[in-house]
């Protein structure tokens, strides 16, 4: 019983972690490089 609860908590924790990462990837600006010279 205890083991089951622990696994459940771990899974939930993992799920939250992944959601955080997902959120991060959506909100972070994308790097747009402009290679240029003036002449």
């Amino acid at each position, binding site marked *: 019983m205890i083991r089951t609860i622990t696994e459940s908590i771990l899974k939930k924790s993992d799920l939250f972690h992944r959601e955080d990462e997902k959120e991060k990837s959506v909100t972070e600006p*994308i*790097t*747009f490089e*402009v*290679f240029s*010279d003036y002449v």
Partner: protein
Amino acid sequence: VRIDQLKKNFDIDVHWRAFPLHPETPEQGLTLEELFAGQPIDIKGIISRLRQVADRLGLPLGERKKTYNSRLAQELAKWAESEGKGDAFHEAVFRAYFVDGKNIGKVDELAPLAKSIGLPEKEARSILELRTFKEAVDSDWLRSRAQGITAVPTFIIDHQSVVGFQPYEVLETFLNNCGIKKRKGPD
């Protein structure tokens, strides 16, 4: 202007990278005939095409007879970027060269340009004399080589690229194709 529009419409972080197009150009500059000497290049054709592109994009273009060494301008641009004035400085240098025909390889031309966008001229001179941003530009040049850049401007997002002066719509399509969605809200 097109980059400003992109920044407004998309959540992108623009990084200007200095590219060495003609790094061998001496301080006093070269005429286009000298620059392309010995090469089967139609200079009048190049100028004509450049003018067509400028007209299409609504960009001002003066009589371009010489090319100059852009290295110091690139180094000063790195300083302007660090001061939050990168876009204004890039525009000032492009205008100085393409519209006014100024020698952007000279400290005496570059320092007043920095002043014209609100940066201290004395500090600009010091940065150019001490070559404070030499390593930053060296790093960009190495990055250009590593990425296989051969022409400018080249726009890159995550290993995908578009080359050449492009209208805004082309750049927007490029961003869309890279999976970047337009910001929500009124245009």
